[in-house]
C-alpha cells in the first residue's frame, strides 16, 4: 500500500514537471518525425515509389523481326502506364535475380517481376487456339516494405488485364509470389519505429535516476526513511511508477507513429507488456545511476547517456554487426543477448511489424524478464548499499 502511495507521489511530481515530462514524451516524437521525414516518401508521383524490376527470361517466338513479343508488349505497357498524366511504375530491366534481390533488400525497388521463358510462345500459341499449360509469372518482394502490398495489387491488375486481352485467358495465368530470402526484413521505417519505442522507454532511466537523486539531495528520502516505510516500499514504489510511465509511453509513441502513417500488424497490448518488462531493467539502471549522482543534472546526464547508449548499442535504433559469443541450446548467443533493449527491440519489432504472438517471441519475453529482474536486483542492491544503508 505504501509502495502505491510512493508511486502515486512520484507520478504526481512528474506530471507537474513539464520539462521532464516533455523530454520523456516529446523527444521520441521529434525523433519519430525525423524518421518519417528521412525515410518516408511524400508528395511524389506513384512511379517514384512503385518501382518494379523486370527480369525477362522470355525466349520470344518465331516471327519477323518487326513483331513485338507479348513479353516486350507487357513491359512496355507497364512502363507506359499512367494515372492522371503521371507514370504509375518506374520500370527497370535487370539481368540477374541476385542483383534484383539486393535492390529489393535495399529498398531501391518494391517488386521484381520474372517473366518465364515460354511467356510469349505460350500467349502466341493461345492466340492460335492451342490448348496449353498455364504459364507462371513470378513476383518477388519483401512483404514488410511500405509499398509491397500496394504495388502488388496494381501490378496484379495490369498483368491480369494484359493476359486476358492478349491471350483471352481468364484463369490460365498463374502469378507466383515469392519473398526475398530473409522474409520479414524491414524497411528503415519498420525497423525504426519499434526501436524508437524502445528508445523512448530507455529514456525513463532518466526519470528514475533524477527522481531518486532529487529525493536524496533534497533529503526527502530521509523524511521517508523516518516513517514506517521500508526500503522495499520505496523501491517497489519507484519501480511501479516506472512501469506506469512505460505503460503510457508505448501506446503514446505508437499512437504518434500511427498518426504519421505507421501501421502495425501485431498487438499493441503485447507491445505494452514488452514495455513493462523492459521497465524492470530501466528501473534497475535508474537506481544504479542514482547511486553515483550528486545532483539532478548529474543524474540526468548519466542516466541519459546510459539509456541512449544501451538503446543504440543493443541495436534498437540501427542494426548492429553480428557479435557471437557462443552457442547454447542451438542458439547463437551474442553480446546483445545480455542487453535488455536488444530483446525488447526484437520482441517489439516482431510483435508490431510481423504480427508475432507472445508464443512466437517467448524467448525474447523470457530473456527480458530474466534480465529485467537481474538489472532490478543489481539496482536495488546498489541503492540499498549506497543510499539507504544507515551510515
Amino acid at each position: 500500500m505504501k509502495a502505491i502511495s510512493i508511486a502515486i507521489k512520484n507520478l504526481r511530481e512528474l506530471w507537474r514537471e513539464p520539462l521532464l515530462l516533455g523530454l520523456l514524451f516529446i523527444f521520441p516524437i521529434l525523433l519519430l518525425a525525423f524518421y518519417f521525414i528521412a525515410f518516408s516518401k511524400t508528395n511524389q508521383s506513384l512511379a517514384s515509389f512503385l518501382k518494379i524490376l523486370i527480369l525477362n527470361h522470355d525466349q520470344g517466338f518465331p516471327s519477323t523481326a518487326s513483331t513485338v513479343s507479348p513479353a516486350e508488349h507487357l513491359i512496355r505497357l507497364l512502363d507506359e502506364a499512367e494515372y492522371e498524366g503521371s507514370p504509375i511504375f518506374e520500370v527497370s530491366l535487370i539481368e540477374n535475380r541476385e542483383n534484383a534481390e539486393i535492390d529489393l533488400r535495399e529498398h531501391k525497388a518494391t517488386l521484381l517481376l520474372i517473366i518465364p521463358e515460354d511467356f510469349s510462345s505460350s500467349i502466341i500459341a493461345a492466340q492460335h487456339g492451342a490448348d496449353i499449360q498455364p504459364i507462371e509469372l513470378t513476383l518477388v518482394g519483401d512483404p514488410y516494405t511500405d509499398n509491397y502490398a500496394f504495388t502488388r495489387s496494381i501490378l496484379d491488375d495490369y498483368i491480369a488485364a494484359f493476359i486476358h486481352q492478349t491471350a483471352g485467358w481468364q484463369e490460365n495465368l498463374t502469378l507466383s509470389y515469392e519473398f526475398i530470402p530473409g522474409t520479414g526484413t524491414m524497411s528503415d521505417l519498420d525497423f525504426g519505429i519499434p526501436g524508437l519505442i524502445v528508445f523512448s522507454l530507455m529514456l525513463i532511466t532518466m526519470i528514475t535516476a533524477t527522481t531518486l537523486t532529487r529525493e536524496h539531495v533534497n533529503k526527502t528520502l530521509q523524511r521517508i526513511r523516518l516513517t514506517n516505510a521500508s526500503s522495499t516500499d520505496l523501491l517497489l514504489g519507484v519501480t511501479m511508477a516506472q512501469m506506469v510511465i512505460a505503460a503510457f509511453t508505448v501506446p503514446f509513441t505508437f499512437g504518434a507513429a500511427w498518426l504519421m502513417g505507421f501501421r502495425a500488424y501485431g498487438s499493441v497490448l503485447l507491445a505494452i507488456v514488452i514495455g513493462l518488462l523492459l521497465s524492470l531493467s530501466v528501473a534497475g539502471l535508474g537506481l544504479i545511476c542514482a547511486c553515483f549522482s550528486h545532483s539532478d543534472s548529474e543524474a540526468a546526464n548519466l542516466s541519459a547517456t546510459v539509456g541512449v547508449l544501451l538503446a543504440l548499442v543493443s541495436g534498437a535504433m540501427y542494426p548492429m554487426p553480428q557479435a557471437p559469443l557462443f552457442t547454447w541450446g542451438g542458439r547463437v548467443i551474442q553480446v546483445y543477448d545480455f542487453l535488455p533493449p536488444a530483446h525488447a527491440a526484437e520482441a517489439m519489432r516482431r510483435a508490431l511489424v510481423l504480427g508475432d504472438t507472445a508464443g512466437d517471441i517467448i524467448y525474447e519475453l523470457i530473456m527480458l524478464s530474466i534480465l529485467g529482474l537481474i538489472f532490478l536486483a543489481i539496482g536495488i542492491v546498489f541503492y540499498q548499499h549506497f543510499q539507504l544503508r544507515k551510515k
Partner: protein
Amino acid sequence: MTQVVLQTENLTKKYGDLVAVKDLTLQVAEGEVFGLLGPNGAGKTTTINMMCGLLKPDNGSVTIHGKPLNGGDPSIRSRVGVCPQEIVLWERLTCFEQLQFIGQMYDLSPQKIKHNAEKLLEDLDLVEKRNKQARTLSGGMQRRLNLAMALVHDPEIVVLDEPEAGLDPQSRVKVRQYIQNIARHKTVILTTHNMDEAERTADRVAIIDHGVLLVLDTPQALKRRLGEGDVIEINFASAFEEATVNQVKAALTHLVGKVLVDVSQNSLTVHALDAVSALPAILETLKTHSLQPGGIHIRQNTLEDVFIQLTGRRLRD
C-alpha cells in the same frame, strides 16, 4: 523526574578521526521541553539523527520507553516526529498532499490523515495555502509546513532541529507559540544555538560542545552555577596590557566578592549578584587604573554566559 520517554546511553558517533558525539548519556522525561544547546558543529544534529534512527551510532544506544529505537518495531519509530533544520519538502506537492503522503507512510487511516492535516494547516496558519505547491510558498510558510510534517502522525516525541532558524520575526513568533502549545501534551526535544530560544522554551538544557555533554540542568540551575545576578559588559576603545588586566581582575574581585571577570582584548565582563549597586565602585577602580570605558552594558545572566564559562568562547565563535 517523571517517566523517561527517551534515553541515550554512551551514544558515540565518529566520522573518520572526528568524534561528532562522544559517550552521550541523557534522559528525556515525558512532557518536558528538552533543549540541546551548542554552537554549530557541536554534534546536535548528529545526536538527534541518532535519536530518530537516521544515523547508526558507532557505540551506545537509544531507547524509547525502554525499547531500542532500531529494534525493528516500527511503532517505536512512529512515536518520534522529526522536524529537520533544512526545509525538507517535495517542491511539487501541495501542502495537503505532503501531509497526506507522510500520513500514508505512517499507516494512518485516510480519515485520520485528513483530520490531522487539516488541523495542522489551520494551527500553523496555512489553510489558505492548502492546495498550493510547496515551491510557491514563502520561506516562513515552508518552515511551518516543515514543522507540520513532523507532527502529522501525532507523535509522542517531537524533535525539532533549530526550529527558529531562518524564520522571519512573524513566523518565529508563530512557531514559538506553537511549540509552547504542543509542549503541553508532547515531549519536545529541540536543538538550538540560540540561547534565548533555549532559555525561553526549554525546561531542561543540555549544553554540548565538540560532541561532549558539558552540563545538563534547568536553565535557572545552569545560570546559578555562575552566580545569579547580572552581567556588566564594559568596552574600551583600545586593548589593554596583560599587567593591567591582572591588576584590574584582582581589584574587581576584591571589590565585588564572588565575581567572574572575563577580560578579553578590549572588553571587560563582570558577573556579580548585584552589579548595578557595584557599578560606581567598578568604574572608580577602572579610573584608578587609567582605563576609560567606551560603552557599558548591563544585562541579566544568560545561558550564553554559562557556555562562555564552560568553553571559554562564545557560541558564535
